[in-house]
């Protein structure tokens, strides 16, 4: 019982790390520009398919494909930001939602065209049948990798945001965009870089999640979109710490729910989200 | 008519209202003056319920309504206008004012009767617009009106609520000087029973149209009196008029 609890917590935490990488970019860009980007998860899908292509078609190693997945997703996100999104920063929430849902739909169809709508997979990056075993509890190798990797990404992000000049600019822009402009910060440039970083991280998350969640063109819409939005809304806009906590809690709740109350489905998660938002509309760590 | 006792409000560590005591008798034309950031608009927001005071009480007549919702205060007879146009861009002037009248009559929740049945309200709205020289543009969308006309529509909307007390937040903000005098002529002609408090920076206008003047500095009411008293007051000269005289010199 205790050992199964440890495994559930562990798996949930690993899952939370994935959700964190998938959503942190959206949280920060939403906080900066108030741009409701429902197409954010499309970057995850792009990263996922990039890895599938590199591993299965080119035969490269899974871990080598990760930086490439990041780069491809980052490039696409910057292109979209330049061409489409920046025209709509002043538009209504609704217009932003609609445009980005439209892009999401297009992404789904494009990948369905090139890769069929069958679920895709890659050969196991790390052996599945040799979990670490500590005191009877089993910890999968890949999930251990996810946790270490996720924590490292979090640490790098926090350092980047707290200790660098660029980070200070981003924080100022999230806090008060007009003031930041007044101080001579090039908000557009900071935003573009943040957008690329966030898109790249989502791509990385998409690549890493193939082994855990799977990958097909529409899984993202029905599944990721909702979960990513939950993390962002519950964590609070523009808050890396908030996203981290929300993603971890969501990951563990989801895993525990599946293990202990399978008949509840996602009911529990939606209930918690609705309750938290009613209590704190700006999210747990949001200021607005 | 409208009075306040010991109103206090802080935004974080910034004090925007401190121990404000206020009593506006019926029919008096008050000017509220003071340097930028003195808390004039905040005071209007507190009185109308758009902000909640940290402490203190507000009364209209004998009734305390410190914690009453803004829309209910309007029904009790307290109306305001906004410094920055806060109008309904895609409604016509007539629709906007008619809406305010229907809200006053508590018939704006009725969804089963058609608007033409409320021609009395529409006529009243037209009358208000005519009294503010807006009859000709009554059928235009608000966003198509000239800026000065939009300022007048601000007042028309407030008048449509049939206020007993009217708080005007810089009614002539952004209006050229010659038009602003005209606008205040209109305000001066309003019913003598109506208590009016207006925020205004132009001292010429203030001394011409106010029967009493309130001076606010740093969230406090510095002094209150007739125009003659205020212009003779040393403290006021120092913080307010003094600066202007020096700037002019």
């Amino acid at each position, binding site marked *: 019982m205790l050992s199964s609890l440890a495994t559930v917590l562990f798996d949930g935490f690993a899952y939370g790390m994935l959700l964190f990488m998938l959503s942190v970019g959206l949280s920060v860009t939403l906080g900066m520009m108030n741009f*409701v980007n429902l197409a954010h998860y499309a970057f995850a899908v792009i990263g996922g398919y990039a890895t599938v292509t590199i591993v299965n078609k080119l035969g490269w190693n899974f871990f080598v494909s990760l930086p490439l997945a990041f780069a491809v997703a980052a490039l696409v996100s910057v292109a979209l930001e330049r061409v*489409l999104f920046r025209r*709509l920063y002043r538009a209504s*929430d*609704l217009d932003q*939602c*609609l*445009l980005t*849902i*439209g*892009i999401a*739909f*297009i992404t*789904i169809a494009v990948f*369905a065209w090139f890769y069929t709508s069958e679920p895709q997979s890659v050969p196991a990056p790390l052996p599945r049948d040799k979990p670490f075993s500590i005191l009877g509890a089993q910890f999968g190798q890949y999930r251990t990798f996810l946790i270490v990797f996720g924590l490292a990404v979090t640490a790098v992000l926090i350092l980047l945001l707290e200790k660098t000049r660029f980070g200070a600019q981003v924080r100022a822009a999230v806090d008060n965009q007009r003031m930041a402009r007044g101080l001579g910060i090039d908000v557009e440039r900071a935003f573009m870089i943040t957008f690329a970083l966030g898109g790249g991280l989502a791509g990385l998350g998409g690549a890493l999640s193939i082994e855990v969640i799977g990958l097909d063109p529409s899984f993202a819409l*029905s599944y990721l979109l*909702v979960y990513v939005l939950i993390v*962002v809304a519950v964590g609070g806009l523009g808050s890396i710490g908030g996203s981290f906590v929300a993603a971890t809690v969501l990951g563990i709740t989801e895993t525990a729910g599946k293990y202990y109350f399978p008949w*509840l489905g996602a*009911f529990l998660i*939606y209930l918690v*989200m*609705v309750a938290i*938002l*009613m209590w704190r*509309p700006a999210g747990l760590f949001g200021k607005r | 008519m409208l009075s306040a006792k010991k109103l206090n409000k802080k935004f974080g560590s910034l004090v925007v209202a401190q121990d404000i005591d206020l009593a506006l008798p019926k029919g008096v034309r008050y000017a509220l003056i003071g340097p930028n950031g003195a808390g004039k608009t905040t005071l209007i927001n507190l009185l*109308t*319920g*758009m902000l909640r005071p940290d402490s203190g009480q507000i009364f209209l007549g004998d009734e305390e309504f410190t914690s009453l*919702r*803004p*829309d*209910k205060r*309007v029904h009790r007879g307290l*109306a305001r206008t906004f410094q920055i146009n*806060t*109008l*309904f*861009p895609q*409604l*016509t002037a*007539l629709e906007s004012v008619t*809406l*305010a009248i*229907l*809200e006053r009559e508590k*018939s*704006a*929740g*009725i*969804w*089963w*009767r*058609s*608007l*033409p049945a409320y021609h009395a309200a*529409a006529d009243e709205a037209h009358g208000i617009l005519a009294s503010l020289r807006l009859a000709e543009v009554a*059928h235009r969308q608000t966003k198509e009106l000239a800026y000065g006309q939009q300022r007048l529509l601000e007042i028309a909307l*407030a008048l449509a*609520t049939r206020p007993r007390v009217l708080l005007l937040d810089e009614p002539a903000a952004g209006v050229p000087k010659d038009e602003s005098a005209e606008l205040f002529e209109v305000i001066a002609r309003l019913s003598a029973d109506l208590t009016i408090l207006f925020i205004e920076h132009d001292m010429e206008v203030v001394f011409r149209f106010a029967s009493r003047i309130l001076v606010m500095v740093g969230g406090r009411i510095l002094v209150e009196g007739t125009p003659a008293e205020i212009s003779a007051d040393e403290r006021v000269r120092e913080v307010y008029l003094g600066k202007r005289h020096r700037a002019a010199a």
Partner: protein
Amino acid sequence: MANASSIAGTHFQSKVRWHPLEYAFWACTLLPFVLAPNYLSLASQIAITALFALSLDLILGYAGIVSLGHAAFFGVGAYSAGLLAKHYWAEPLSGLLAAAVAAGIAGYALSHVVVRFRHLALIMLTMGFGLLLHEAANSASALTGGADGLQGFKVPAVLGFRFDMFGRAAYAYALVLLFLCFLVCRRIIHSPFGLALRGIRENATRMPAIGAPSLAHLRKAYTIAAVMAGLAGAALTHTTSTVSLETLSFGRSADVLVILILGGAGRLYGGIIGAIIYMVARDQFSGINPQYWYFWIGLLLVAVVMFLPNGVLGGLSALRKKAQ
């Protein structure tokens, strides 16, 4: 004064009067009976979807509340009608009443929460409630049939007209319901309440300052919209004699939003025109390959937001202004 009275009066009268094109439009809705008897079941689906979009227009187009969970009320209506038909009796008019009451109660209850929020929190909450209800219906399979949907009942006829395979009665039923609800909506739009809703959309800050109880107005609008969405759901149940879990899905909420925006939100005919274009296009494209339907609808959304911000009807009226 007599002069002013006539001016002020006609101002509203001219807006309320029916336009000749409106008569023509409703006359055209009868054409499928003659011209496309094989497509009557599609036509009845369109009428139902149009009614659903019309109900969303009331809160989104006129009052300005974004909702990504409007299917909740459609589904409540559909399941109420289905449960009544399955366990008690299959007379559809009482089913409509039951659906309206159930959806209305759900809408009224939710309205107390929803109208207090804006922006992302509002989008997330409406979506969250929609998802919650979907999951609840999925889990409560004893009552709802779960993922298989509610089956095993048959609504034979309405007022003596049989729901047959040709769909004549089905289309007539859906069309009459749509038309009646349209009349109600039209009346609402041109009523004092409709004016107040537009006021809230145009400037929510000003409304309290003219004495408007904005939240009460919004709650009322939300409840009315929920009732109409429930009626649409019930009509789908009656004309198909099944209730699928999909009636509560996020996809349905997103679809109806797309339909309304496509046609033009805040215009009485926006939802109806949007439903016709969307459903006919989907029927055609699905014939070729259902996979790529999403591609076209996505492209359409991007195009509408970038180039047709007020939908098809908004674009048409802009064209007409240019021509004049």
